[in-house]
């Protein structure tokens, strides 16, 4: 690990000042410390932001507010989150290990780097780590790579589970800087790789995610997250689906669908939602809509199976909700 300076910020102003002096924010450190040890990340200065007052989870009249420093375990076990936004709690509990969920912050989770082994190996080429050096994953070991949102320069998946649930549920992030705050829908926060895979999101230097906001709605209580993994626990997604449905008298009034493990960013699927809305709650509705999820997918050498697995994952998530669906009175 390269030497670095370390300081603790006790107020936002301290954090911004340190960031302006080539500081890099650290909260849980589960991604950053790991990548620093591998030599993938080489910050000159770490700014410990854990003393900032951004740990609260609050249920507001029209949305859920999750402080950026709330820990994954804390959010997963929050009674309001479990009752009103079950997909968020489930996605968190299906992530990482108990230890890592105790450590990792929600803001850091959204900013975690890809698990692509070529990105994490500094002896390998990688356009994300070293722009212009090439993408060995395209013709390499790519069974776990993306089939959606890829480019010739990068095929790495985004690794967060909860980001998939949050994108499905129309979450926004609140971002602070010395100039004030701005709010961005999480879906627009992430950037597909295109020809600049090293630019992963729209954060400007020194900006800090301070909160995540998830709007209320009739669909959020009937939401779920299904994750398909190579082992039963403590593993990243091969495919995953976050779905939410508002149902009345056996008919789908509203739907939210996003997928993980298959795309370069958490992948919202509005065309799948459109195919669900207005339709009867039935297996044939689910199958027809889920088939649309892989339209335009580009398989690689070893991951073409995801073209079959993703629609099945979506159908399983929808069927999970169907069993919960109680017709409105």
């Amino acid at each position, binding site marked *: *690990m390269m*030497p*670095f*300076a*370390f*300081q*603790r910020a006790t107020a936002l102003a301290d954090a911004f*000042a*340190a960031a302006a*002096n080539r500081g890099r924010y*650290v909260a849980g*450190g*589960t991604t950053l*410390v*790991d990548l620093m*040890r*591998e030599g993938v990340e080489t910050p*000159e*200065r*770490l700014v*410990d932001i*854990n003393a900032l007052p951004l740990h609260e989870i609050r249920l507001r009249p029209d949305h859920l507010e999750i402080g950026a420093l709330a820990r994954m*375990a804390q959010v997963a076990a929050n009674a309001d989150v479990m009752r009103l936004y079950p997909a968020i709690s489930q996605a968190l509990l299906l992530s*990482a*290990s*108990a*230890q*890592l969920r*105790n*450590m990792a912050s929600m803001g850091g989770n959204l900013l975690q780097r890809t698990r692509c082994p070529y990105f994490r190996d500094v002896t390998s080429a990688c356009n994300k780590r070293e722009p212009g050096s090439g993408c060995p994953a395209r013709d390499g070991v790519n069974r776990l790579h993306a089939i959606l949102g890829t480019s010739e320069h990068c095929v790495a998946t985004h690794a967060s589970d909860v980001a998939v649930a949050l994108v499905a549920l129309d979450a926004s992030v609140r971002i602070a800087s010395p100039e004030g705050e701005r709010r961005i829908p999480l879906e627009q926060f992430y950037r597909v790789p295109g020809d600049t895979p090293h630019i992963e999101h729209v954060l400007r230097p020194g900006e800090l995610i301070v909160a995540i906001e998830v709007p209320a709605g009739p669909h959020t209580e009937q939401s779920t997250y299904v994750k398909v993994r190579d082992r*039963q*626990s*403590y593993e990243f997604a091969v495919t995953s689906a976050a779905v939410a449905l508002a149902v009345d008298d056996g008919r789908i009034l509203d739907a939210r669908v996003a997928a993980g493990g298959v795309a370069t960013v958490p992948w919202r699927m509005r065309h799948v939602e459109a195919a669900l809305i207005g339709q009867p709650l039935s297996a044939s509705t689910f199958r027809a809509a889920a088939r649309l999820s892989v339209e335009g997918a580009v398989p690689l050498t070893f991951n073409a199976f995801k073209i079959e697995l993703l629609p099945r994952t979506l159908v399983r998530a929808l069927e999970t909700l169907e069993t919960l669906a109680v017709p409105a009175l």
Partner: protein
Amino acid sequence: MDSATTSQVQLTVNGKPVTLELDTRTSLLDMLREHLGLTGTKKGCNQGACGACTVLVNNRSVNACLTLAAMCQGASVTTIEGISENGRLHPLQEAFIRHDAMQCGYCTPGQIMSGIACIQAGETYSAHAVREFMSGNLCRCGAYQNIVAAVLEVAEQAGGRR
């Protein structure tokens, strides 16, 4: 602005106050093992994948290898050396012996710290719940069956089985 690559940290380890001036790169794991001589906490993968380094920070289980010591300012850390009382083993340590819940023993301190966290969290209503909660602790000898039995037994004795 200070650009020193050492940092002072004050914390409590197994109930004792500690103040150290450390290279900022020092992990909590290396601080415990190399600076305090507490070698019960083990270094397995050193990348947050195996759980051998599990300790409690402010009563929550964490991977000491991915925790920077400098980030533990003011924290209370409990390691495997800190769980016995008055020379008596912790009930989970006794249960591990009774159930032969180890072979080589390298993962055992981490397993026990995770098991304590599991019992405190009440995630002991089934063998599956214990396995899920403790999936961040790998045992390459494959002693899982006996580890789970030991955790369930102590949870039951403590009335923590729900």
